[in-house]
């Protein structure tokens, strides 16, 4: 069998969101919540001045309890900042005006990579490994745990792929400090990667213990070397559930970032 090279599909910024505890909501409310998701996303884009970005969406699909969409890769930095805080604010506003049957909280994953995009509105638009990875990230336990361990005021917890983090955050394009992100290992099905956790408004356990859960059972804290090292450095708070030594590891969460909209930005 001979294989010939084919063109790589275009790189797209990929966003997926998921409603927390959707299956736990009343069946009769589920349709209303499903229908609300694109409205929420559109209003969040509008809220932070990205109405055009929403309109220029390459593709967008409902996933039942969420939504997945693709944008021009140049939009990637804006998904991190200001979109994520704007989504948090939009959900806070919706809770204040009782817009939804129950106050909604969302997991978000952000990725970038090659996906099909014919521009013809096919059902297959946005296909590719990168799309699958976006959904895998959304299912990863570190980002699920963020919502489990935070108070109800934390409405958005995001996980950003290593590629998106490198391209948009470390590069400075997102104008969002790398310290606002916490690296976490991701292992979902075939995907083994590092995800970067970002919570616009941390609360509860995220403030007291950081973005990675504290585990008291030494058996799961990690390898012998790691624990041995800890004894030598009692000041270091390396009590996270994951032993992770990848680049850019940041201990704990940050609770002191300013989360409101920046009035100096257009």
């Amino acid at each position, binding site marked *: 069998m001979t294989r010939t090279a084919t063109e790589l599909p275009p790189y797209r910024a990929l966003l997926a969101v998921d409603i927390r505890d959707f299956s736990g909501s009343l069946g009769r409310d589920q349709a209303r919540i499903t229908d609300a998701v694109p409205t929420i996303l559109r209003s969040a884009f509008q809220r932070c001045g990205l109405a055009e970005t929403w309109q220029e969406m390459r593709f967008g699909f409902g996933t039942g309890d969420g939504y997945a969409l693709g944008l021009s890769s140049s939009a990637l930095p804006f998904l991190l900042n200001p979109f994520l805080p704007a989504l948090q604010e939009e959900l806070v506003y919706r809770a204040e*005006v009782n817009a939804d049957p129950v106050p909604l909280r969302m997991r978000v994953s952000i990725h970038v990579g090659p996906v099909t995009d014919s521009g013809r509105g096919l059902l297959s638009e946005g296909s590719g490994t990168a799309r699958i990875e976006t959904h895998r990230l959304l299912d990863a336990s570190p980002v699920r745990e963020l919502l489990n361990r935070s108070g109800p005021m934390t409405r958005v917890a995001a996980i950003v792929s290593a590629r998106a983090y490198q391209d948009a955050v470390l590069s400075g394009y997102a104008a969002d400090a790398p310290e606002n992100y916490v690296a976490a290992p991701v292992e979902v099905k075939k995907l083994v990667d590092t995800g970067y956790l970002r919570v616009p408004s941390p609360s509860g356990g995220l403030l007291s213990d950081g973005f990675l859960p504290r585990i008291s059972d030494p058996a799961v804290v990690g390898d012998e070397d790691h624990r041995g090292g800890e004894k030598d450095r009692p000041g270091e708070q390396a009590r996270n559930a994951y032993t992770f030594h990848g680049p850019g590891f940041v201990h704990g969460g940050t609770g002191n970032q300013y989360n409101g909209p920046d009035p100096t930005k257009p």
Partner: protein
Amino acid sequence: MYPPGHRLFRQGDPGSAVLALISGRVKVLGIEPDGGQLLITLRGAGDLIGEVAARRLSKRTATVETIDRCTARVLSVDRFNAFLNRHDGHSVLTDYLVTKLSQTVPYQVELVHFGPERKIARLLLEVVALADRSSANPDHIPFSQQEVADALGMARSTVALHLQRLREIGALRSGPRLAVSDLDALKDSAGV
């Protein structure tokens, strides 16, 4: 018990007490150096007022005025802290502040990217949502056109134009006083 339009706190005053709002709505206003007032946020029954200054023992960061007749309980900072200690409430308060502190930019800045009609609809929707059961007429919006204009930093004529449109689509009742007629239509205009 406070009458409508009563000033509960003045920006810059020392903050020595916390108010627990039991019924009624209040406006939180930021006073600009030139004397102008900007709406920062609205609060309703169940909210704490003055908790920012009280916790840091600093000056009031905003002016607070009642919208409706309000009932509130006044707590000294010491009693408030003692209450939090007794009920292990400090982390709950921190969580509360996380949300409330994200609402410290003026309303008009938060809504700056929305079109005028959406801004107005969002403000009206929030005022109505904050009305509690003690309110005699929860559909009524106790704001004048001028107050809506001031809150959103818009010209009164612009506000009048869009309020008229909201009446035409049936979201607001016709007549001089502002009142919601169709909540879903208002939500549509607000984009929620």
